[in-house]
């Protein structure tokens, strides 16, 4: 009889794979249309996702920016070797040559006391002080650059050895601030990652709830679809696309937020670096990061939709 196969006009349903592609395209288009139909609530959802993604991402971007800047520092830190005040410049130079031959020392630079004083006055603006001084109180200083493979323990040993040499008043090893900063950065990264995980969970729950409302408001449609032979997959698909789309938009907006924040911070950061005679050449947020955020957002959106749909769609059965 006629019902055995689709008779009459047309060629009947498409092959499965083709129909599948078609269903997905239709679902994607439908979900865009549905989003546009409720601009206010969807914009709010996108903003919530954007902020939730932006906070940890901003933290991570900041940490990686500071880290990049640190890697540009001359590592490991140098030692300042203060000679005894009685030492002449020639003595200091001889001492420098001697130290330079020691293992673990890459280079030694002699800063004579007059230059040091001039630089000190220039840097601090204390001209009045210089006129008051009868003589230069500063000793000659040696800047010691350790070879790059030296560890902090070796650095401490080196400074001990140097202190024992005649003619050396003191050795200043100032690396603790760097260690602390590095520890702080590690901590900050962990905090940002933990925050990120919490926020991702927040995105999944928020979006899941938004989609739940969507599912509830389309209960009628889902019931009809199921009654006339649409499976869960058919009913689910538009929600998956809606979730992924909201997530991707959230990622895009969070990218914009971060980008704008860094743009706004550019001038003060440049100023800060100027003070240290360095250029802020660090790129903090680029095109790939946008793509990454959008992919992350849409993945989270898809996951939320799966979770929400799994929870709510199966409960809607025709009565």
């Amino acid at each position, binding site marked *: 009889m006629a*019902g*055995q196969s689709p008779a009459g006009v*047309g060629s009947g349903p498409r092959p499965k794979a083709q129909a599948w592609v078609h269903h997905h395209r*239709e679902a994607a288009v439908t979900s865009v249309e549905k989003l546009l139909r409720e601009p206010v609530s969807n914009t709010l959802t996108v903003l919530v996702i954007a902020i939730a993604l932006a906070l940890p991402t901003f933290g991570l971007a900041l940490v990686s920016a500071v880290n990049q800047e640190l890697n540009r520092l001359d590592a490991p830190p140098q030692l300042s070797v203060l000679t005894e005040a009685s030492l002449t410049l020639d003595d200091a130079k001889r001492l420098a040559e001697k130290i330079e031959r020691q293992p673990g020392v890459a280079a030694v630079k002699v800063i004579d006391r007059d230059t040091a004083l001039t630089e000190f006055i220039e840097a601090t603006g204390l001209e009045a002080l210089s006129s008051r001084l009868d003589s230069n109180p500063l000793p000659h200083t040696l800047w010691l650059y350790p070879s790059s493979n030296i560890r902090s323990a070796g650095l401490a040993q080196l400074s001990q050895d140097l202190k024992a040499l005649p003619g050396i008043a003191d050795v200043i090893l100032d690396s603790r601030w760097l260690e602390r900063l590095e520890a702080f950065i590690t901590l900050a990264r962990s905090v940002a990652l933990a925050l990120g995980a919490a926020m991702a969970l927040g995105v999944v729950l928020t979006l899941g709830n938004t989609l739940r409302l969507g599912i509830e408001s389309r209960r009628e449609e889902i019931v009809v679809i*199921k*009654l*006339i*032979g649409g*499976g869960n997959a058919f009913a689910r698909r538009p929600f998956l696309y809606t979730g992924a789309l909201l997530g991707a938009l959230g990622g895009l907006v969070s990218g914009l937020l971060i980008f704008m924040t860094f743009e706004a911070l550019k001038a003060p950061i440049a100023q800060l670096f100027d003070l240290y005679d360095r250029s802020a050449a660090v790129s903090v947020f680029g095109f790939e990061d946008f793509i990454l955020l959008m992919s992350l957002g849409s993945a989270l959106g898809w996951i939320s939709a799966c979770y929400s749909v799994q929870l709510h769609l199966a409960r809607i059965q025709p*009565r």
Partner: protein
Amino acid sequence: MDLVFDRVGKRFGQRDALIDLSFGMASGEMAFLTGHSGAGKSTLLRLLLLLDRASSGEVSVSGRPLSKIRESGIAAYRRDFGVVFQDHKLLFDRSVFHNVALPLEIAGFTKRDIDRRVRAALDKVGLLDRERASPEMLSGGEQQRVGIARAVVARPKILIADEPTGNLDPQLSSEIMGLFAAFNSVGVTVIVASHDLALISRMSQRILTLKEGRLITLNNDKRGDG
């Protein structure tokens, strides 16, 4: 037999909705299902659509026992049916055209085929000029005809209608029944649940009468006298 109920029972808690029900329908046959409300008409149709499962006995469609169909197979199974509901179950957020197109979209027809088939179905129910309208703007009789177009658009093997004329005046009801008879005449198996005895006795088709969950008439006479 295309459709067989073999000693089917359905219990809801302490109440028997269907008791020891047996009958068969050949492919291409048309039957009316009648009885008072609560007699089991809806339950019977629900079992047929796998909205519920029989408590005892077996329902088979095209030789396939329904107890063997798993949850995941229900959607595909329902695609063999066209269903007309008393309350139409149209979606008011889309046009008449897109309401009728829904089963074809589910089945994965091409856009070209969808266009052609939807127009053909709307033409059969006399609503071709309303394809862009929202179902909300249509009268009750027109809405029911959209529902019928949606039920037949995918050319189902079996057409089921649950009180399709429940809210319509006699003239419209008789038009709607005429449509079902027309689909039956091109080979579709048709089952119509209705309590409008006056109307169905005029239709000269087989009548299955339910009373308190039991089948009390098995009228196989095509000249049936109700």
